[in-house]
């Protein structure tokens, strides 16, 4: 059992990193990202391809993935140079995300299409015994999670962090204060993107096999749930939120034993219904989530 728990906590780790990314883009920067799944897939594929095709080691593959997703996100943010209404932006991200998934599915020459990319190497896979490996992977994931957290914490407390929140609260004001809002938005989305890229690469390293069917909308539902539960803008809250949601998701699998009458089709449906209901309930009754966003004490 213990090793299953370890594997679960690894999954929680990179899910939490993904949630942190969304929290930065949406929670702090106010830039809704409905294309999360697509960008996540992009990160996973970028990392995998860099390892398999370019023979890069895990470290550089992850960096590469972060760069790729960061750049793509930055470009997407540029589309908003005329409109900063979030609803438009959300639709754009939704579309781009979908497009990325289609690319992964259809560009066989690069992504092997629906067959997926198999045999993704793991860092030090050869130098660490298989039965030890999960511990190493857990350690690594925890380290990366903490690193991401520390980094974002730093950003939040920096002057740029204040600009980020200013842009969220009211981009017009931010603009009149002489801040270049467009540029700020591009940076916000790009930084978030880089973190998504990190989460994506961890996904490929963990599963060692990626194919388009792994990147479904449950990812978005899950991440938004985590962020809202954790309290928009609050990093620590988001991490805990991610943990809780993940446990709920996995836990709900055991519903099967509890209610044998349900077939698994219905169970997976219930799982998503739970998330959706929780999401709306939180929005209504606990809009601030369970944790407070960092605020400069005036």
């Amino acid at each position, binding site marked *: *059992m*213990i*090793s*299953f728990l*370890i*594997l679960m906590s690894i*999954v929680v780790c990179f899910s939490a990193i993904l949630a942190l990314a969304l929290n930065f883009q949406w929670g702090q920067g106010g830039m809704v990202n409905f294309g999360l799944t697509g960008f996540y897939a992009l990160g996973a594929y970028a990392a995998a391809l860099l390892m398999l095709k370019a023979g890069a080691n895990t470290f550089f593959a992850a960096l590469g993935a972060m760069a790729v997703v960061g750049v793509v996100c930055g470009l997407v943010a540029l589309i908003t140079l005329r409109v900063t209404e979030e609803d438009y932006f959300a639709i754009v991200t939704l579309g781009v995300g979908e497009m990325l998934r*289609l690319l992964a*599915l*259809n560009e*066989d020459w690069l992504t092997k*299409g*629906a*067959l*997926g990319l*198999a*045999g*993704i190497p793991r*860092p*030090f896979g050869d*130098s*660490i015994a*298989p*039965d*030890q*490996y*999960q*511990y*190493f992977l*857990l*350690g*690594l994931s*925890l*380290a990366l999670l903490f690193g991401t957290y520390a980094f974002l914490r730093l950003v939040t407390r920096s002057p740029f962090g204040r600009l980020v929140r200013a842009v969220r609260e009211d981009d017009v004001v931010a603009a009149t204060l002489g801040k270049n809002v467009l540029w700020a938005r591009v940076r916000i989305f790009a930084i978030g993107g880089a973190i998504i890229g990190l989460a994506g690469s961890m996904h490929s390293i963990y*599963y*060692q*096999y*990626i*194919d388009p*069917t*792994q990147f479904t909308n449950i990812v978005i539902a899950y991440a938004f749930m985590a962020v809202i539960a954790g309290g928009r803008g609050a990093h620590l809250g988001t991490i805990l939120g991610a943990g809780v949601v993940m446990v709920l998701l996995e836990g709900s699998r055991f519903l*099967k034993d509890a209610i044998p009458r349900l*077939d*698994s*089709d219905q*169970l*997976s449906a219930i799982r998503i219904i739970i998330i959706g209901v929780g999401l709306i309930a939180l929005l209504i009754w606990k809009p601030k989530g369970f944790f407070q966003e960092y605020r400069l004490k005036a």
Partner: protein
Amino acid sequence: MQKNRRHVIKSIGAAAASAIGAPYLNLAHAQGASIPIGVALPMTGNAGAYGPDMAEAAKRTAAKINAAGGVLGRKLELFIEDSESSAAVAANLSQKFINVHKAQALVGYWGTPEGMSSRPIAIQNKTVLMVSSAANAITEGDTQGYVWRFQMKATDWGIVISRATIDKLGFKSVGVMGLQNAFVLPIMKVFEEKMKAAGRTVVDSLIYNPEQPSYRAEVERVFGKKPDAVFCFGLLPDFVSIMKEVYRGGFDSKVVALSIMADAEGKFVQAVGPQVAEGIRHFQPMPDLAAPGYKRFLQLMGAPADRVYLFPPNTHDQLAIAALAMEKAKSPVAADWHKEIIAVGNGPGPQVDDIAEALKLVKAGKPVNFQGAGSTCDFTPNGDQIGRGMGQWIIKGGKSVFVEYAKP
């Protein structure tokens, strides 16, 4: 430097280890009386229709084996889980089977995504993975003898279908529509090659995505070229939409498909109605219904003599082969018994189609060539199954009528 970092990382791993507890032993007999076997079946998604029967087959087979004294005097214990036809879920399940239940055999794995995502895990943990997936990639490369396919390889599907088309159906010009899907593409490729080689014209060939708003444009493009027949390789949902489009479009090319699309336990005709389904031919790898092994399987399932099971027999054979190999290797550890799979499957030895008898022989140290319910259970060294054939049906009046059975 490199060494240095490695050292650091290792110590991190060690730290994590000591923090969480002693590493587990990857040995089944550390687990005690029963022999755990992980069974990942599709209860959800595009293959949802097949999961339940496969589960039933697994249960009854295990029961029969246990009733016959089990394996190495120990009972088989099945852990049946839903793969949700999803790669990620299947991977998690495999991890769980191996780490939590200490399983040494992973069986079921209907779809290619499930198989592909679990393959590296199985090989790494030196655990045998038995799949029903068709995509060639499953067994390609170095599997170290841990990955075994209880299904016809996709390219063989293409061979059988094309041969039937050329010899019997005699279509001069064909169009091909394929779902963007791992096991469809190799079928398409081989099929088109064979058709061209036989001097038939392939007027058009396109690949479409699942869950498209509509398939109007695709249908227009392929059927618009008026080939004698259009071969459609995909899954049920897209085929339903496509056929409605074809019928309403007033096209009259013949349509050939796979049974998981055009039959799917009757769901297809339910969805489109008999007049649309009329005249569609569909192919599917299937057991040899005449084989004694299959008849015996029907008894085991308590099913009527005319019942056609596509996949449950594979599940039966997977458990049977695993049991025999363990018995022969006198060890429940995959690293030992995976070497015996070919021995019990291909022979040499007397052909036996009853798992109980086969076990008796092996326990008595005699050789055996097991004849399964889904196939003759003969394998190539890299884990591909040979000796499984394909059935062909044609839909008449809303019913699928059996045409013929052929092997590649």
